[in-house]
């Protein structure tokens, strides 16, 4: 079965920006699929949730098979699921590396690979990965997080080349700090220091992220791939 509606997969939809994007795409008329390791405490018409860990190959494959069987297509993927950690490298346990890289790198790669397998059937796809301004700002205390997102940026640029001939674009957005769980627990003076280093000195908003994603996924952006756009004037 193939639906006429656009099918969108967003990872990490249980809360925060993922939930915001799921609601936004659903309200625009798309069929939205989302996933997280824990069940969400909300539901929405046009939204289907999968209990899946993006770092688990079997679970990602099962989710894609379910999407393929129910919709016959996948148009847009937002690789939003992410894990952050802030700590001085000298005090960072190696288990943190595994946890961060499992979700951010392994998870992004797995979802990109399995999504592209489905997207290439129709020779159309839009993949948006999520990086961070911590990469270009080289923020102290975020070595592992920024390193994992550097890997996401490199994946984005190389997958863009590999998937380009299949009609699939791959881009990334690098948000500034946003009021989400990811920055809860980060000292306010640290956040302020980051904000002060931006060209536009304020925290990011969900709408800022959605705006860049809208640009990447629109049909007219077929000639835009392998790009990383940072918010807040960071370059």
């Amino acid at each position, binding site marked *: 079965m193939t639906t006429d509606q656009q099918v969108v997969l967003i990872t990490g939809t249980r809360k925060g920006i993922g939930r915001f994007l799921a609601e936004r795409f659903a309200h625009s008329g798309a069929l939205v699929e989302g996933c997280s390791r824990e069940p969400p405490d909300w539901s929405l018409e046009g939204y289907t949730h999968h209990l899946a860990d993006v770092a688990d190959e079997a679970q990602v*494959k099962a989710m894609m*098979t379910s999407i*393929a069987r129910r919709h016959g297509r996948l148009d847009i993927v937002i690789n939003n699921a992410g894990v952050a950690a802030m700590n001085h490298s000298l005090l960072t346990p190696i288990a943190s590396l595994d946890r961060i890289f499992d979700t951010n790198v392994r998870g992004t790669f797995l979802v990109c690979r399995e999504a592209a*397998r489905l997207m*290439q*059937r129709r*020779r159309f796809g839009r993949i948006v990965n999520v990086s961070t301004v911590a990469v270009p700002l080289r923020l102290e205390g975020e070595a592992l997080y920024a390193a994992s997102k550097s890997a996401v940026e490199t994946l984005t640029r190389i997958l863009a080349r590999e998937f380009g*001939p*299949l009609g699939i674009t791959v881009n990334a957005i690098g948000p500034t700090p946003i009021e989400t769980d990811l920055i809860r627990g980060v000292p306010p003076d640290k956040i302020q220091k980051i904000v002060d280093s931006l060209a536009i000195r304020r925290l990011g908003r969900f709408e800022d992220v959605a705006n860049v994603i809208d640009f990447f996924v629109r049909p007219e952006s077929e000639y835009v791939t392998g790009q990383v756009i940072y918010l807040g004037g960071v370059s």
Partner: protein
Amino acid sequence: MTTLSTVDRSTVLALVIASLRDLYEQNDITADSEPGEDTYLIGRRALLDSLGLVTLIVDLEQKIEETFDVALTLANERAMSQKHSPFLTVGSLADYICALLDEQRNA
């Protein structure tokens, strides 16, 4: 859906040929003759480029899963290290897929 116990080579061969035909059509490839057992998939005599072979493998994995309800990984390390590539011709690929399906059946 065809079950593993009823799998036969002609079914697998038909899947490979159907995938190859689709790929030729999608990429405006004109072949001198209909794809068959001896059609080359790699090398100088093949009409597919490297991306075409990747697309063929992905498409076949999906068709195999839909047909036999078995998730196979065709381009695994074993396949890549074989002296004679299982991806050389349509026939050798069909043989290779049958061998993998047999392994699944006997596992």
